[in-house]
C-alpha cells in the first residue's frame, strides 16, 4: 500500500520523532519496537516502505531486512537503515542483505523526508 511506512526502532523517542515527521508530511505510519515485532505486524498489514534501526533486541535490523526481502508481499519495498557514522561495516552488511539506502543519525527532519521522497516518492 502506497503511503504507509513502517518505522522500526527500539527507542520510543526515535520512533516518535520519525513517525511525527512522516505523519506531518502526509504518510501513514506503523511503528514496531524491534525486528520480531515488525515481522509480526507485517503479516497483518501491507506497507510501502520500511525505516529500521540496526541494533535492536530480539531481531536486529539486518535480519529484518533479510526477512522482508524473502516475504513475497514486501519483497520490493524500499528499506532505509538508520545508522551511525561508526557503523560502516554494518551499513555494508545491510546493503548486502538488501537495504535500499541509509540515513546517518543524527538527522534533521528535512533530511529524512528527502530520503523518503527519493526512494518512496
Amino acid at each position: 500500500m502506497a503511503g504507509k511506512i513502517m518505522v522500526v526502532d527500539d527507542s520510543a523517542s526515535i520512533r516518535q520523532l520519525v513517525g511525527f515527521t512522516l505523519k506531518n508530511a502526509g504518510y501513514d505510519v506503523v511503528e514496531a519496537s524491534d525486528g520480531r515485532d515488525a515481522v509480526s505486524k507485517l503479516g497483518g498489514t501491507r506497507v510501502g516502505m520500511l525505516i529500521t534501526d540496526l541494533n535492536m533486541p530480539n531481531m536486529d535490523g539486518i535480519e529484518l531486512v533479510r526477512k522482508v526481502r524473502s516475504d513475497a508481499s514486501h519483497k520490493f519495498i524500499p528499506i532505509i537503515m538508520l545508522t551511525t557514522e561508526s557503523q560502516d561495516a554494518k551499513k555494508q552488511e545491510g546493503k548486502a542483505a538488501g537495504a535500499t539506502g541509509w540515513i546517518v543519525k543524527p538527522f534533521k527532519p528535512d533530511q529524512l523526508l528527502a530520503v523518503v521522497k527519493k526512494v518512496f516518492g
Partner: protein
Amino acid sequence: MAEQDDRFLNTFFEEAYEHLASFENTMLEIESVADNSELVGRAFRSLHTIKGSGAMFGLDDLSRFTHEVEAVFDLVRNGKLALSRPLADLALKAGDHIRCLLDVARAGGEANCDAGEALVAALKKVSTSSGARKADGADPATYRIRFAPATDIFLKGVNPLLLMAELRELGRCDVYAHTDNIPELDALDPESCDLFWDIIITTTRGIDAIKDVFLFLDEESEVRVDTIDDGSSSEISPDYKKLGAILSERGDVDSASLEQFINARKKIGEELVAAGVTASGKVESALMEQRHVREARASRAAEQGASIRVPLAKLDQLVNLVGELVIVQARISRLAQESDASPLLASMAEELERLTAELRDNSLGIRMVPIGGTFDRFRRLVRDLSGELGKDITMTTEGGETELDKTVIERLNDPLVHIIRNSIDHGIEAPDTREAAGKPRAGTVHLSASHSGPNVVIEISDDGAGLNADAIRAKAVERGLIAADSTLTNAEIFPLVFQPGFSTANKVTDVSGRGVGMDVVKRGIESLGGTAKIDSRPGEGTTIAITLPLTLAIIDGLLVEAGGESFVLPMQTVKECIELTRNDAAHSHGRRYINVRDSILPYMRLREWFGINGNSPDIEQIIVTEVGGRRTGIAVDRVVGEYQTVIKKLGNLYQDVEGISGATIMGNGNVALILDVRQLAAAVESQENEALAGR
C-alpha cells in the same frame, strides 16, 4: 513628454507591459521550481529593461521605483539573498505598483499610486538586511548519464522511476530507455531489471547534485556522469558533435569501426546498425543527446534576444497569400499530371509543391503560440482568488507546450477565466470543510492541453465538491427547462449549467456568480468552433473539457467523389480506405454495417446523405474515419487522392447545413465541399440508436 514621438512611446508601453507580465509570471513560477537561477535572471532583465527605457522616456518615478526592485533582485541574482515566498509576494506587489505607474504615465495624469513609499521601504529593508546565502546560480551545463543498474535492484527496493523523477527536478531532462538487453518472453525474469538508461540533463546544480541522486546505488550498478556542454561557450552556433563522435565517446562504438564507416557518406547511424556494430537504441539515444544539446544551445541563443516584433495583421496577410498560393500550386500540379505535360513541368511542379508545403507550415507556425503563456497568467488569478476567499489552492498545468493559433488563444482567455473562477469559488471547498471530508486541505486546479486528432482538448479540473445534481435539477425544473417528472442521468443533468442564467450558487460573491453564467463560456467556445463538456463526481471534483478544432486556413485532405461531385475529408480523420462490394452490402440485411477485420464498422453513404441521384458503382469505397475515438465509415464512389486545400467559409445561408464545414476551390475551378466528419459520425450514431430503440 508630449514632445516625444508617440510611436516610440507606444512601443515602450507595449514592451514595458510585456516585461511586467513576464516578471509576474516568473515570480509565480519561481515558487514552484526548485532551480530558479534562470528565472531570477529573467526577472532581473525584465526589471532592468523597464527601468532603462523608462528613464529614456522621462518617466522618472517609474525608473526610480523599478531601480529599488532591481537592486533587490541583483542581490538574489548574485546569491546574496534567498528568494523566499515573502519576497516573491513583495515583488508581486511591486509589480502591481509598476503597472500603476505605467497606467498613469500612459493616461498622462498625475501619479496617485500611494503604495510606492511603503514598498520602497520594505524593499530597502530586504536589500540591506540580506543574510548572505550562496545560491547555486551557475550557468546551466549539460550532462550525459549512463545508468545501467544491477539486475537485482528491484530486490533492493530501488525504483528507477523515482530516480528519473528526482533528476527531472534538477533540470530539463531527456531520457532514453535501452531495451536491448531484455530477453525473449519465455526467458524473461520479471524480477530482474534488464533496462538501462541514457539521460541527458541540463541543470545549474552541478555534477555533484546528479551524483547524489544515485547515492544509494552500490558498485554493481553502473552510473557514469559526463559533462558534455558546460554552458560557458557563449557562441550562438547551435551545432553539436557529430553522431559518430558521441557514440565513440560513450564507448558504444570503438573508434576503429567508426573510421571504417565515417567515409561511407551515408547516414552513419543507419550504417552502423546495419553492420551490427552497435544497437539501434544506442544510435537513437545518441541522436537524442544531439537534439538535447542543440535545443539547450538554441534556447541560450534565444535568451540573448533574437526575436522581432511583427503586427498580427501582417501575419494574417501572409497566411492569406499563402492560401492563394496553395490553390495556384494545386492547379499547376494538376496541369503537370496531364498526359501531354512536359516532364520538365512535372519536375518543377513537384518542386513547387514541396516548397509551398514548407512555406505553408512555416507561415502557419508563426501564428501558433504555446498555450503555456495563458496558463501561466492564470497562476496569478488562482493565487489571488484563493487568498481572497481564504482557500488554499494550487494550480498545476500539463501540456503547456501545446500550440494553438494566437487569436484562438486570446479569445479563449475569458471563458477559461470564468471556468477557473467557478472552480475556485464554487468547486473547491474551504480548507476545514475539505479536511472534514477527508481530503487534503489544499485544493488543486489542474489545467491541461493536449492534441486529440485534429483537435486540441483543454481540460480544467478541480478536486472540489463536484456539481450538485439535485440542485441543478431543481433549478432546471424551476426555470422550466425540464419537466418535473423527467428522469435524467447525471450526464444529462450536468450540461444544463450551460443554459443561460443558470447558477446554483446560493450566494453571490465577488469572485463569481455575477449573473454571467456558463452560457457565456459555452457561447465563447462555440464561436471558436469548439465544444464544451462537463463531468463531475460528487465529492471528487469537476472537469470541464473544451475541444477546439485547429481551425487553420489550410488543411490536408482526402479528395473523394460521389455521384460526380467532389468532397474533401480532413486527412487527420482518415484512418484507411476499404472496398465495399454489392455483395457486402447485401449481406448486412439492410443495416449499415461492414465487417472490417472482425470488428463491426457502422457506415453511411455520402450519396444518400446529400440526396445524389443515380446508381452507385458496383464497388464503392469506404473511408474509415476516426473522430473522438469513434470509427465511422463513409461510403463514396471513388477516392481521388490526397489533396491540400484552402478552406473557404460557406456563406451565412449554408452555415447550418449539417455535415459540411466549408468548401474549397479545386485546381480545375470546381467547388468541393469539405465534410464535417464529426457531424456525420454523430448522425450515423443517432441513426443506429434509433434503429436499436425501434427494435
